[in-house]
């Protein structure tokens, strides 16, 4: 039987209250969002916090809204809410395509975008989405708020720039009129973590790629992205040849390791193939001027 070790529990009544609690308890405290990564880690004693600070009552961390030129997703928005959001679907197909293959419908009812980003699992699907779209996160502490690009957010596996007494409060994505986007994942069985995933957005304008982002997860791409492949495509026509060359550059940015999900050469093949498929799809659906 797997049960977490003894732990205290407190419900935050506001973001400020959660920050107070974090300051009071230092690094013995952990924030509890969906709990679908943290509780399994506590059962395995990979995490042993002394107190959990539950964020689930904080309506201020919920909701998806448009603010100026950005889409803002509250930290406590669940995978299920992202999957069903008409606002997200209108701007970026990548969200639905990724969410459909993250875990299963029941897990998606609990897991949150804030928890996914802060868990920083090297196979997290939403990290590839966030990196592809060049999103940013807003982090709040007692000193106020700061905004950080998602491509600078991860320090390494399971490590982020969120400090001990800070909370990620929202994730922001620039709206890009006319952008096409797509996500593809290969998994061993339905609902499993990826063997490899790729997600991209492309803006094609005047017959050439004017903007693009490439995100990759589970295959050792630094900051879940492939900047050389993106730079290569800018100003080029989205021909099969150019997309394939970019996909190869994306695979070159990956350093996967062999595990029960597959050997290195297979994962590099997936990096290239999934990037190519998503680039094709995104370029074809781009409605750029």
């Amino acid at each position: 039987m797997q049960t977490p070790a003894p732990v205290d529990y407190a419900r935050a009544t506001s973001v400020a209250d959660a920050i107070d609690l974090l300051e009071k308890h230092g690094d013995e405290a952990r924030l509890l969002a969906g709990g679908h990564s943290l509780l399994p880690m506590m059962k395995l004693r990979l995490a042993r916090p002394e107190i959990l600070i539950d964020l689930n009552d904080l309506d201020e961390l919920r909701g998806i809204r448009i603010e100026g030129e950005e889409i803002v997703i509250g930290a406590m928005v669940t995978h299920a809410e992202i999957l069903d959001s008409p606002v997200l679907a209108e701007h970026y197909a990548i969200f639905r395509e990724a969410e459909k293959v993250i875990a299963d419908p029941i897990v998606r009812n609990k897991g949150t975008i804030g928890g996914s980003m802060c868990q920083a699992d090297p196979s997290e699907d939403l990290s590839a989405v966030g990196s592809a779209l060049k999103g940013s996160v807003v982090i709040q502490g007692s000193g106020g708020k700061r905004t950080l690009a998602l491509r600078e957010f991860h320090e390494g596996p399971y490590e982020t720039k969120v400090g001990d007494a800070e909370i990620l409060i929202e994730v922001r994505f620039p709206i890009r009129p006319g952008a096409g986007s797509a996500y593809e994942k290969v998994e061993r069985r339905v609902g499993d973590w990826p063997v490899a995933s790729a997600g991209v957005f492309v803006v094609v304008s005047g017959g050439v790629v004017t903007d693009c982002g490439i995100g990759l997860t589970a295959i050792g791409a630094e900051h879940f992205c492939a900047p050389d492949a993106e730079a290569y495509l800018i100003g080029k026509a989205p021909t099969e040849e150019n997309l394939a060359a970019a996909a190869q550059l994306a695979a070159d940015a990956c350093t996967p390791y062999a595990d029960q999900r597959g050997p290195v050469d297979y994962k590099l093949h997936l990096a290239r193939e999934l990037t190519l498929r998503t680039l094709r799809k995104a370029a074809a659906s781009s409605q750029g001027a």
Partner: protein
Amino acid sequence: MEVTITVNGTPVTSEIEPRKLLVHFVREDAGLRGTHWGCDTSNCGTCVLWVDGSPVKSCTMLAAQADGHEVTTVEGLEQGGVLDPIQQGFIECHGLQCGFCTPGMMMTGRWLLDNNPNPSEAEIRDCISGQICRCTGYKNIVASIQWAAEHPATSEVTA
């Protein structure tokens, strides 16, 4: 800590350790053994119940998180001695063999039909994709949920 969780409409108050998982609260404190407890790792789905109307894997939620909330378990499907169509569907279509996965399958199936009264077979299979059945091969589980979709107001208990 003391928690009060309303289980199938009845408030249950109990002194618990904060680390207690909701599945154990329901089975031990509320005394309802319909919700099963299997893999412990959010993979099998036999522990699925509803919190505030939304299905969750109760092995991956603390009872403390449900304090002040409404839980519905498989025992809550039957109303006044009348089985829910989803339960009737499992009888009609032989939707279980050992029955271990059944409570979770029924809770997810009922939720699916509440949101999508006429799901396709693909939608049913997708919805139960986070739940494992070692006996049936899923065919009869899908048929049971389809039966419930086709008989939304059945009240006839035949077994």
